[in-house]
């Protein structure tokens, strides 16, 4: 094998310009793929983290049908106390779950005594909400960035609403809501902070303490609208969701019917479609890399075989078996692929590192000045490299096969 590699390496060196061009082309493709994957993946991961860590959670649990009616925030579709208790028991038994937070969601009127507008209220337990959504407090642009902002008697007002309404930190406002029995109730609360818009359906969502929500809605039992769950590893969210379903004894029928529903973030957020599009683009970029490698290696190997017909005739004449001639050319393609992959990986990682260090900023929706910190998983580097090497060998297969099938007498006659 060593001798095959040695001969292949020398043959590659023999056609310096052509080999350099091929290796450069492959390396360029690898660099492009790695940088693209790193940048898009980091943006995607950043956005997903923003969504899951500041508003949506990794997954949510609702009463069946609640998500379909979520725009009207129906109080009569809250999870009853017995179901909440069952869910909490199930969540406690799944070790992949890091934290969870119960919410009461309802539509309300928000008044500063002179003007009134609509607001979506989330009643939460501050500690539990912050544990389930670690970036929740970072969304507070004005006011205290701590759990005290959600103490009883306080409200976090969404930025869009605060701007339109002229609400400031320290203002006293009234939240008025109708409970599920039709009874209207209100409570005076203090604006403790202004909340930046989260990516996703959070533009008009304000937050108050869970107990205040129960008080406004005159709830007696421990019923909740949704339970937001944080998992230890986001890529495992589907498995965790399935474990919860199994733990709750949810079959397909119950999942769709009136029991309990478990939804992952990707089922709840429209950003999941953008994430899928990014994945699709990455896939096509990888296809392009395959095409680049395939065409360049195929071209260079066809030329190599064509130009070395007499040489092939010579080695065949002196008794080299066809499969060894095949190996010679396959190893040559393999070496070209490996060289291109190595050069590409070195340059690609260098560019990714440079981007990481240079801390380029970008904007996403309402969020501005976000820092681009591209990183790439080792598996992506290995996948791209292996893909290049495998395609290189496959592209060499046809020319190599042709070389191995040459009749020595014809090859020796070749001019």
């Amino acid at each position, binding site marked *: 094998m060593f001798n095959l590699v040695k001969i292949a390496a020398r043959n590659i060196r023999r056609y310096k310009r052509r080999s350099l061009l091929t290796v450069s082309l492959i390396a360029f493709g690898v660099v492009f793929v790695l940088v693209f994957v790193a940048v898009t993946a980091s943006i995607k991961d950043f956005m997903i983290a923003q969504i899951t860590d500041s508003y949506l959670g990794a997954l949510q649990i609702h009463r069946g049908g609640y998500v379909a009616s979520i725009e009207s925030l129906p109080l009569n579709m809250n999870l009853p106390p017995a179901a909440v208790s069952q869910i909490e028991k199930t969540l406690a038994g799944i070790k992949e779950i890091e934290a969870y937070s119960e919410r009461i969601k309802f539509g309300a009127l928000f008044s500063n005594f002179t003007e009134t507008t609509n607001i979506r209220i989330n009643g939460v337990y501050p500690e539990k909400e912050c544990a389930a959504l670690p970036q929740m407090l970072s969304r507070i642009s004005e006011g205290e960035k701590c759990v005290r902002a959600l103490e009883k008697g306080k409200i976090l007002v969404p930025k869009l609403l605060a701007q339109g309404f002229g609400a400031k930190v320290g203002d006293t406002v009234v939240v008025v809501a109708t409970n599920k029995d039709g009874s209207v109730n209100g409570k005076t609360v203090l604006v403790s902070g202004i909340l930046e818009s989260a990516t996703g359906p959070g533009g008009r969502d304000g937050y108050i303490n869970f107990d205040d929500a129960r008080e406004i809605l005159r709830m007696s039992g421990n019923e909740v609208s949704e339970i937001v769950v944080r998992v230890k590893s986001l890529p495992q969210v589907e498995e965790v969701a399935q474990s919860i379903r199994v733990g709750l004894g949810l079959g397909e029928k119950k999942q769709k019917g009136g029991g309990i529903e478990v939804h992952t973030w990707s089922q709840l957020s429209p950003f999941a479609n953008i994430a899928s599009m990014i994945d699709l683009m990455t896939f096509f970029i990888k296809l392009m890399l395959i095409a680049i490698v395939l065409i360049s290696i195929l071209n260079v190997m066809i030329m190599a075989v064509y130009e070395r017909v007499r040489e092939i005739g010579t080695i065949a004449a002196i*008794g080299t078996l066809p499969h060894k001639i095949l190996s010679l050319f396959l190893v040559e393609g393999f070496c070209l692929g490996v060289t291109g992959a190595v050069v590409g990986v070195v340059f690609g990682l260098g560019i990714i590192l440079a981007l990481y260090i240079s801390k380029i900023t970008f904007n996403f929706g309402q969020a501005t000045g976000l820092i681009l910190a591209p990183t790439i998983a080792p598996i992506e580097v290995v996948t791209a490299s292996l893909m290049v090497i495998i395609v290189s060998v496959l592209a060499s297969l046809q020319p190599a096969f042709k070389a191995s099938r040459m009749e020595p007498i014809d090859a020796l006659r070749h001019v």
Partner: protein
Amino acid sequence: MSLIVAKNLSKTYATDSVEVKALQEVSFEIEAGAFLAFIGPSGSGKTTLLNLVGCLDKPTGGELQVAEMNVANLGRRQAAEFRGQNIGFIFQSFNLIPVLTAYENVEYPLVMVQELRPAERRDRVLKLLKAVGMLEQKNQMPEQLSGGQKQRVAIARALVTQPKLVLADEPTANLDHDTAYMILRLMKQMRDNFGITFVFSTHDTRIIGEAEIIYSLDDGRLLQRDERGKANVQSSENRSAKHTAV
């Protein structure tokens, strides 16, 4: 004992409209240890005959036995294996592998064909490079060698597998007279040293005299056998018996 036996050997190349009889019922026997030339004008069938004997091509008629093996109908792989074990080739254009040094060119058949252990390979290659006077140039690439030096390396490569037979098609056609003569002398010396049968083709009248047996070919037919060196052949056989092969 005959190393090569050909009986009514024929080779016809057929295209859609034309049929060319390159060899017509040629019969001959070549003894082991011979230093033999096929001569004749261009197109007389010399190369075709060497290709058949070298298992590079198949006859369309007749019988051909090389080293006690009927080689007329060997398959692709069998023919390659047979060549690798029994036949060495010397080409008109030397056909050294340009990316390998002189040493590596000679070593190549041992690596790729016979798969010998490195120590044994090294021993054999150095011995042969020394025998052909190319030891000092062993690390040079073919492009750095003269025509004569290239052919010396090619001779060493042909001999390194310890073949029973070396076939050389016009081995001196690309060389000047002095070098051609020197190469012929070297080939003969190798025959003497290692007892290997040398069969070559040539139309170069300057070096024909070096052959001990000459077969004349014309228009695909064997015209005559000239045994001007018969005595030499016999003495060579005696000599070869005393030598140990490389």
